Structures are given as C-alpha cells and as structure tokens.
C-alpha cells in the first residue's frame, strides 16, 4: 500500500563541508569556473542537495540528515522546508544551483531511497542536486554563464542563479490517454517526405515509397508505431545501408561494399579460431578449451557532442550490453575508449556556434567513461585520444568491450512460445529517436531540439543486470538475449523475433513515470535494459532470481511462429508487421563514389636548428603527449587481470603499446588489446590510411607479446555525409585497404560498425569530420609472463631498429606542428609487414628482447624518448646507422637528420636487446631490414649523432619527460593540504 499522501511532506536537506575541513569539490569547481571565464571568484563551497518526500515530517528529515545524508565527521547540514533557503556563510554572496531537468535520470536517488529505507524511515521519492556557494565579486550573469559551461550542462540540467528555490522530489505526470494513431500515406512524394521529416524518422523518399506500396497491398495505412518501428530498423545506425549498399568507384562496382571487401577477406582467410563473425552483437574468437573471447567497438558520437558526460557514459553502457548480449551472454572483462576531439586550446571564438568547447567535451567524455566503467568494475585498459580542429563540432567517441563467453554458449535463438521478458531499468521518455538522430547531421540547434536523445546512464542498474544475467545464464534459464540499444524494444524484440514472430503488450512494460504513449514505450531508448527469451517452465525461476538481485524483470509477451511482429496496447492491436518486410524490405541504396584528392602539397621545411627543441615540441603535441591524466582516472586493474598496464617501467611513465590482460584468474593465458587510428594520413590517401591503421593496430599488439598469427580486428568507420561522392570514395578506399591488409597479414575482421553523417551544420555551412577509421586489435598471448613492455631495462643493451625508414612525413605529427599535411604519406609493404610481425613474435617468444616499442606518431625520436621515461636510463644513438631507403615517390630525400628522426614509416619496432642475446636476435631477423643504432646508457640523457657525425641532439630525459607529461595534465590536487584535517 502506498502511504496516504496527506502524511507525506517535502523537505530539502543541504549538506556542505564543515569549516576546517577541505572541500575538494568546491576547490575543483572554483578552478573550473575560472577556466570558464568567471572573474572575481574568491572561493566556492559545494553543496550536496537532497530533496525528499517522506513521512515523519521535519523530525524525520533531521534524523536522516544526521545519520544518512551528511558525513558525521566532515559535514554540516540544513533541513529546509518549502520557501526556506540556506543562509549564505559570511563572505559568500551568490549561489548557483545545478538541477537535473524533469525526466533526466538521477541515479543517485536510488541509493538515497535504499539508505533512507534501511534507516527505518518511510519515503516516497527523492531527488539529488548540487549547488555552489560563491564568495567574491563575480558578476552574476558572467558567473551563471561560466557555471553553465563548467558545472552543468543545460541540455540536461537547469543552471539557476536565483538562490535555489524548492526542488520538487516527485515527478508528476498524467497517464497517457490511449488513442490509436493511423498515418495515411499520401500520393504526393513531397507530402510523403514531409511525414518522414515531421516525425523525425530519417526515412528517404524511396523508403517511404516502399512502405506506402507495402501497406497498399495490405489495404490499410500504417500506425505511428509501425512507421516508427520501420524507421528504427531501417535507420543507417541499425542497418548500415550505405556501406552494405551498391557503390561504384573508379570503374569498380560493388553490389555490397562491406560484404565484398571486409567480410570477403574474413571468409577467404577462414581461420578455425574465428567462432562467430559479423553476426552477433560482437565478434567471437576462441580463447582456450573453456572460453571464447568477444570483442566489439561502438560509437556514441552525437549524444556525446551535446552532453559529453552522459553520451560517453551511455556509450560505454551500450557496448557493455553488446557484450552481455553476445551469444547467451559474455562477461565484460576489459574496455577500450578512443576519443577524437577538437584541439584542447582552441580559442573560444573559434568554437562553432552551439558546439561545446573541445576541452569541455574531453573532460566530459573522460568523466563519463570513468564513472560508468569504474562503477561497472570493468578495467578500461587501452585507448587513444586524437585532436583535430574538424572534430570540434562533431567529436567521435568510440567505446569498446572485450568479453569472456563460455564455449558452448555461442548459439542462441528464441523459440515459439518462449516468453518475451524485458529486464533492467524502467522505460521513460529518454533517448527517443536515438537511432535516427545518430543517422543525421548535428546542427547548432541540436542542443535544444534533440536533448531528448541524450541520457544519463545508471551504471549500478547495469551492474545489477550483469550479475543477474550471468547467474541466469549459468542456470540455463533463457534461450536468447539481446540488448536494448538504438531503437529500444522495437529493435530488440524485432531482431529476436526475426526468425519466428512475437506478440507483445507494451502496457506491461514498467515505466518510470506515467504519460508515455504506446509508440514512445516501444521506441524509447532508456538505458540498462535487455530482452530475454524465456521458456515458460523457467519463468518463475528467472523472475525470482532477478528479484533477488534487485533487477526488475517483466513478461511483456510471447514469441510466436507467425512471422509477424504484433504489438498491443492493452486490448488494442497497435502494430502488426510482416517481419520479412521489416528486415528485408528496405530498398537497396546505390551510390556513386569519387576518388578523394590530397588536400596539400609537399612542404619544404628546413631542418630545425635544434632537434632537441623540436623533439620537445613534438612530445608536447596533444596527439603525442602523455594521456596519464585520463588513464589514471580509469580503473584499469579491477578484475585483477591487467598484466601490461597503460604505463610501464619503474616509475610507470613509459606508455605501453597495448594492454595485456589475463582474463582468467587461474591461468596465465592472455590477450593483447590495441588499436590503430590516424585520420591525418587520410587527408592524403585514404587507402594508405587504412593500411596504416591496420599496420599500427597489429604492430601494437605484437609489440606487447601478442601472436601475429592470432590477431582479430574490428573496423569502425566514421565519416561525413556519404551523399558526397568524395566522402563515400574515401570510405570505399578504406574498406579496400582493410580487405587487402587483412588478407596479407592473415588477420581477419570479426566485427565492425560505421557511423556516417558526422557533420556539423551552422550558419557557416556544413562541415564534415575527417574520414576516420579506427582499427581495434585483439591478439592471443600464450603466456602473459612472456609479455614485453616498452621501457628500457638495462645499461649497455643494444638498441635495435627493425624496419626501414623513408622520408615519409606526409600526415606526420612533425608536419602537423607546422600546420601542414604534405603528400609523402607512409606506404605499407604488406608482404614485408607480415614477415616483420612474425619475426617480432619470434624474438619476444624466444625472450630475446628486453623491451619493444612500436615506432609511430612522431617517429623514431618520440619512440626513443618514450622508452626512456621513468627508467633512469638514457640512450646513445647514431642516426647514420638507421636503415633507410629512398621512397615516398621520390618527393624528398631521406638524407637528413630531422627526416630520419620524425618520419613515420610503418612497420618499425625499436627493441632493446641484451648484448649476449644480440647474435641470436639477429638470426631471427635475418633477411629483414634492421640495424643496431645505439646503446642504452646509465646517464638519463638522449644523445643522438647525426649523419655528419656531430652530436645533433643531447637532451636530459627529464626535460623531455616534463614536456610529454605537462601538455595534457589538466590538474593536480587543487586543495592545499593545510586544510586537510582538524585543527
């Protein structure tokens, strides 16, 4: 029985740190406000607010404040009734409130309810909010605007400077009145398209026409729910119709681009250890006798552009559910994240109207991945961050997940009469039209128009769902599972029912609040939900198990054998779709692609006067600089399996090439996880960029000890509008590069995803992102105790460079420092790459190398410096010994110190080899270009001799390391330790 409303009263409890104790959040808020342009802020006190609707009146609120909501040691609090406000402490003149808008997920409220009830009080509803008390002379409007930039996000929160009125704990909404909506499809093409546009359906004219013909045969008009279901299922996001469509490029015609390139390579390679490719929510490869490993990377770009924190958090939440929905449910064991954002120091007037500043985006996505991933207890062990101005309006957020799936749990399938069970979070109006939203371009009004597509995740809800799912899986309580992602129930149920049929009643779906229409329930993308197919005989056991883990699970219908997707709302049928039409009725797209052109000429840069200064500048370039500030915020060690961590060496300063993970607590068998991405090369030649990305991804896992003959790859394409022939052309060339590299290296693709229409439109026009390809790699490691890290280990070792250096500076970090792209893009020799990777495996497996690092962005100089960081060692190198070749189409001569040092020629490794192992190592490398180019030294200094024999670079490692570490360090502890305890 709900308590009688008359006994319920609302109070706010506001908690702040007691004088004499440090307020770390307040200190951080002050720093952020200053960064966001607020002047005259002398001090900030943070307030944690709780709005409660409870029985027991003010006395109960006081009891809860003291025993539950405030910390008994550090906090003080006030209980406030309606109209009462917290008195400002002396010297504090203003107050900013950050309050989630109605309907936005407030995950912390759940814990409040649980604690309040555990403490024996009766409570109806709770909401949390935060406030900041500000001391100083800050001007009110400037402060509010800075707060809107730094402390909250108006896409999901109200930023109030009115002194903080009451926050209503109860979301009140009226139940929806049922009205079946039928949409007549008109004859006029123009009006037909208008229906698509008005409904935000993102359906093309050809698609609308196909739908019109289909329903004409059935002699009826579709309901709104049917149209929505088709729109979700046919969306670019779900169907990838462009890249699985026909493409003509340079005289070649593909009927299905992806199938004839990437999939075809996987089929041709036909590796027995590929268990499931391109069919389930993730790719699956064999691991050991008991387990397979799953791998999937998703993008969550558009939500992250508008609300970086929520977008990245729900991005990681979504890809984890992909893992949980692979086979009968894999257990996530590691996450990866890759971000592409605008330059962190972009001037405010350079940020397009309506877009968030790049640093704000970066901090938001990092916090989102941190808070979601850490709470889920999955190590975030590998990733990358790339900066390019063209990502400012449309950043890219890639979230990846590796899972462990028991062998024998790969096959799944709903059977007629199985129950349709939705489990996890409740359904609200959040995330409606996410699938179609992500298939459109962003524009300056997206922040307001599309905020319904943005959500805040609830990691603990997903963690509970994961715990329950694994228990139910191991007891065999269901026959099929998939996640509720884009398209919500419409996609999840539609997909599971594809081979049979289903009959569901949306009225059974648990709701967050009343007022949702049947169509909204059906397409809501509320997070943390999965759909299970449960045989009737297991219904009771499954529901009981889920309840014991505090997971709500509800039967909403049944799978059938009718081949139709029937949706009811109570008694009324509101959808009855032919599943064959739904899944196969989308008209095929055919597009013309054009070969893209390089956008720059080769520059003629003079050799810098000081190579030492040049190297420091490169190490401080955002694309190269240390990402420790980010990496340390991620729990990369939970589950106790991370054996090679993001930073190696005695002082954990040398960046690792790949993460090495031991998925089983009771075994030393492992996997190496890495990635390759560099959109700059694509400005010259997308095909070469594709080869380079694969080369880098494979190089990274091989350098850490992964087996070159057991590398599985993922592709993630991100591009602007493929209606532009040159963008589609770039994507097509990338797909061809993926095919060629996979075949040559024997590394099959096992899954992939594309995200198109990454454009930002404002008054100045529409700007596409650079076409970007992320290649993620996963390699088998027979015994993680043979893994090798990049840090230098000993004095007097040989430094052996494997691979040939050419004057390949096009798209390099060195050119980027000069604002140039050039033409001399690095070229991959695939045959030699295959031999090189095999040789490195042989070296590492034979324990012939003490350290191994791949040579990538910034070239040899950067690789050498990174290997020395935090080791206390240095190196002496002679550039004249570097194996060089002319090449790069003869654009440049390689006979120059700076070119040897900064060229980004592919397939190169820098190895540290003990003198006593050198002969054996060289034997393994016989026939491949390599040379000993120097020695490690006891003095922590890099000393490089140039081609003419003179010392051309002589820098203390510490100075290089400072440049590397400082560039992207966005804050050390702000609070002075003086306020660190009781006086």
């Amino acid at each position, binding site marked *: 029985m709900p308590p009688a409303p008359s006994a319920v009263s609302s109070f706010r409890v506001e908690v702040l740190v007691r004088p004499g104790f440090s307020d770390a959040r307040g200190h951080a808020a002050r720093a952020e406000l200053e960064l966001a342009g607020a002047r005259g802020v002398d001090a900030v006190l943070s307030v944690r607010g709780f709005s409660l609707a409870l029985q027991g009146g003010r006395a109960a609120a006081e009891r809860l404040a003291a025993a539950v*909501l405030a910390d008994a040691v550090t906090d003080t609090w006030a209980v406030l009734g309606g109209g009462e406000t917290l008195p400002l402490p002396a010297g504090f003149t203003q107050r900013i409130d950050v309050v989630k808008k109605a309907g936005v997920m407030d995950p912390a409220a759940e814990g409040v309810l649980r604690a309040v009830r555990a403490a024996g009080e009766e409570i109806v509803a709770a909401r949390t909010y935060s406030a900041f008390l500000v001391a100083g002379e800050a001007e009110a409007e400037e402060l509010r605007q800075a707060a809107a930039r730094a402390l909250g996000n108006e896409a999901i929160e109200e930023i109030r400077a009115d002194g903080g009125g009451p926050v209503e704990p109860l979301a009140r909404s009226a139940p929806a009145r049922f009205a079946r909506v039928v949409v007549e499809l008109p004859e006029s093409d123009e009006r037909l398209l208008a229906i698509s546009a008005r409904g935000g359906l993102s359906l093309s004219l050809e698609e609308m026409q196909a739908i019109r013909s289909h329903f004409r045969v059935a002699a009826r008009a579709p309901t709104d729910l049917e149209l929505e279901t088709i729109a979700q299922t046919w969306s670019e996001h779900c169907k990838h119709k462009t890249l699985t469509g026909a493409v003509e490029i340079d005289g070649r015609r593909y009927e299905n681009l992806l199938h004839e390139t990437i999939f075809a390579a996987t089929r041709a390679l036909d590796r027995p250890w590929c268990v499931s490719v391109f069919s389930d929510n993730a790719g699956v490869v064999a691991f050991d006798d008991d387990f397979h490993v799953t791998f999937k990377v998703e993008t969550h770009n558009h939500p992250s552009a508008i609300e970086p924190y929520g977008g990245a958090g729900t991005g990681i939440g979504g890809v984890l559910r992909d893992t949980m929905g692979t086979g009968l449910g894999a257990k996530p064991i590691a996450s990866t994240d890759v971000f592409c954002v605008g330059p962190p120091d972009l001037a405010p007037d350079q940020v397009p109207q309506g877009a968030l500043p790049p640093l704000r985006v970066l901090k938001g996505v990092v916090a989102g991945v941190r808070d979601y991933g850490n709470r889920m207890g999955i190590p975030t062990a590998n990733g990358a961050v790339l900066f390019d101005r063209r990502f400012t309006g449309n950043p890219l957020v890639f979230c990846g997940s590796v899972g462990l799936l028991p062998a024998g749990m790969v096959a799944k399938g709903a059977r007629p009469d199985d129950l349709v069970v939705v489990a996890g979070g409740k359904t609200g109006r959040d995330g409606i039209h996410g699938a179609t939203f992500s298939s459109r371009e962003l524009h300056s009004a997206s922040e307001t128009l599309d905020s319904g597509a943005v959500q805040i995740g609830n990691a603990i809800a997903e963690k509970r769902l994961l715990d329950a799912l694994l228990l139910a899986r191991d007891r065999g309580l269901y026959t099929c599972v998939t996640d509720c992602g884009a398209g919500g129930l419409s996609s999840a149920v539609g997909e599971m029912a594809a081979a049979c049929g289903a009959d569901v009643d949306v009225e059974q779906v648990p709701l967050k609040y009343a007022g949702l229409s049947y169509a909204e329930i059906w397409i809501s993308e509320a997070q943390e939900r999965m759909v299970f197919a449960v045989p009737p005989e297991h219904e009771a056991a499954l529901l009981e198990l889920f309840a014991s883990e505090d997971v709500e699970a509800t039967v909403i219908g049944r799978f059938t054998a009718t081949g139709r997707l029937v949706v009811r709302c109570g008694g009324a049928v509101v959808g009855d779709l032919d599943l064959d039409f739904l899944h196969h009725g989308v008209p095929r797209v055919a597009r013309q692609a054009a070969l893209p052109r390089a956008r720059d000429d080769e520059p003629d840069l003079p050799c810098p006067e000081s190579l030492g200064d040049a190297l420091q500048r490169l190490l401080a370039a955002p694309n190269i600089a240390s990402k420790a500030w980010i990496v340390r915020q991620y729990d990369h060690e939970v589950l106790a399996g991370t054996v090679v961590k993001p930073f190696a060496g005695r002082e954990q300063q040398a960046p690792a090439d790949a993460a090495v993970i031991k998925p089983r607590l009771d075994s030393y068998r492992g996997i190496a996880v890495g990635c390759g991405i560099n959109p700059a090369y694509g400005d010259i030649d997308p095909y070469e960029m594709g080869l380079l990305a694969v080369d880098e991804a494979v190089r990274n896992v091989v350098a850490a000890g992964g087996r070159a003959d057991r590398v599985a790859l993922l592709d993630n394409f991100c591009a602007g509008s493929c209606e532009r022939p040159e963008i589609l052309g770039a994507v097509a060339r990338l797909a061809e590069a993926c095919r060629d590299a996979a075949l040559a290296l024997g590394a099959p693709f096992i899954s992939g995803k594309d995200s198109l229409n990454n454009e930002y439109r404002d008054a100045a026009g529409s700007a596409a992102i650079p076409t970007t390809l992320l290649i993620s790699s996963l390699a088998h490691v027979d015994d993680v105790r043979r893994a090798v890290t990049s840090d230098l280990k000993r004095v007097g070792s040989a430094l052996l460079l494997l691979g040939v250096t050419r004057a390949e500076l096009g798209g390099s970090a060195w050119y980027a420092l000069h604002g140039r792209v050039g033409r001399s893009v690095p070229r991959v020799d695939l045959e030699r790459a295959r031999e090189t990777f095999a040789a490195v495996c042989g070296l590492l497996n034979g324990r012939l190398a003490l350290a191994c690092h791949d040579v990538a962005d910034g070239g040899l100089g950067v690789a050498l410096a990174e290997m020395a960081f935090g080791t206390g060692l240095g190196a002496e190198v002679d550039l004249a010994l570097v194996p060089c070749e002319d090449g790069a189409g003869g654009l440049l001569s390689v006979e120059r110190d700076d070119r040897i040092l900064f060229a980004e020629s592919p397939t190169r490794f820098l190895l540290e080899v003990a003198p006593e192992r050198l002969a054996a190592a060289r034997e393994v490398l016989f026939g491949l270009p390599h040379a000993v180019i120097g020695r490690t030294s006891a003095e922590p200094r890099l000393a490089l001799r140039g081609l003419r024999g003179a010392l051309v670079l002589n820098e203390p490692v510490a100075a290089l390391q400072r440049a590397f570490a400082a560039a992207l360090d966005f804050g050390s502890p702000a609070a002075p330790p003086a306020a660190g305890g009781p006086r």
Partner: protein
Amino acid sequence: MKPRFLVLRAAGTNCDLETAFALESAGGHAERVHVNRLLQGATALDECDALVIPGGFSYGDDIAAGKVLAVELLHHLRDPIVRLVERGGLVLGICNGFQVLVKMGMLPGIAAPIGLQEATLTDNDSSRYEDRWVRLVSVSERSVFCRPGERLELPLAHAEGKYVPRDAAVRRAVLEGGHVALRYVAAGGGAPSYPDNPNGSVDHVAGLVDRTGRVLGLMPHPERALLRVHHPAWTCGAPAAPSEEGHGARFFRNAVQYLRG
C-alpha cells in the same frame, strides 16, 4: 578444515570474484553472498569465520562512498557482525569495504559500541578518481593481516580515500593506540606528498585496525597484487621476489593462518 570466508556482495560490488579467488588461493574457503540474502536471515554470518567486504561502488556510492551499505549493515546486521568479531572472527574491508567499515564506526574502533563514526574517508585532494600503485609500510603490532615493518607495493583506485579523523583527540588516539595499520611512504624516504600520498590522507594513513587486531580496513587492493605479473614494473624485475607471488597475497595468507590457529 578450511576457514570459511563470507565475501559480501551488494549492488555495485565489483571486486568480489578476485577477492574470493585470493582467499581460496591462500587456503581458505570463500563464499560470495549477496547482502539481500543476509537481510533475509543472517545465519551465513553466524556460520562463517570471517567477513570480507570487497571493493567496488556499493549502491553507486550514492550519498558518499560506502555510506548506503554502511547504513544497511548498521541497521540490520550489526549484532551478527559484532558477534563474529567477539568470537574471534575476522573482518576485512578493502577499498569500498574500508569505506563501509569506517562509516559504520567499526574503524578505527577506538570506543565501543560501533555506530559512532570517529573518522571518515572523503574526497581525494585531487578531487578525482585515481588508479595508481603506492608504496606502503605496515606499522601495526596487532593486526592479524600484516606484519609490522613490512614494506609493500600495492595498487589503489578510488575517489574517496582521504582519511580524516573527527577531531584532534581521535587523531591522537588513532596514532597512540596503534590503530594505524598501513601508511603511505615516499620512494626516497621522508614525508610522502602527492602522489606518494595519493589522496591527502591525514598522517598518511592507508589502512586502520581496530582494538582487537581482527578488523582491518585498507584503501589499497591486495587482491590485485597476488601475482608478480600484477606489479606494473614486473617486466623489469620488480617486485624483488623470486617467486610468482605479489605482495598482496600476504594479507590473505596471514588471515587463513590466523584462523587455522
């Protein structure tokens, strides 16, 4: 007979599997039990030899780290937990478990009864979550989990790990009463500053022990340092141990040995 460890699980607990594995590897029997099961009946607590509250984000650390679970345990399971300690059993709280024990008032546990919070674990001075390895020294004469004088390297990962005593009296009582179990130390000696003291803990406290020596809480994660290959510098020979074992294994072995008698 293997000592029986109850590894407590709640929504958001995420280090329970590796903690149970560490206990089993040390010769114990570990059972992971959901707090919901204990709320229905605490027999499992009365039948075990030790309660382990592992790391994670119990209930999302909503309100404050460990707070919601602490309120739940205090209101519903205080008696069986007190009985466990009184009959010679052990209680170990790692990271989030430590936060729970401190917020329940079980640690530092200067004055009985539990329920009175004497200290807290609050926001790191850096005001953000950080994962890093730290150097520690074990200083407790009476903890059954660690030996005085031992130097250890362990990982930690938290946002709210800064130990703050309630007042000067508690601070003194903790120091003089031997309640400090583990302390952060600097690589080169001397007082550790950030990041050697990673969170700004008063008196560089990383772990606390109660009056009996049988209740321990610590911010670092020994279960993530069971093996040599867990150490970030294992490829260059650290930690200097000939075996395949890491420093974290000692805590679990000591507990099992103590319970075996």
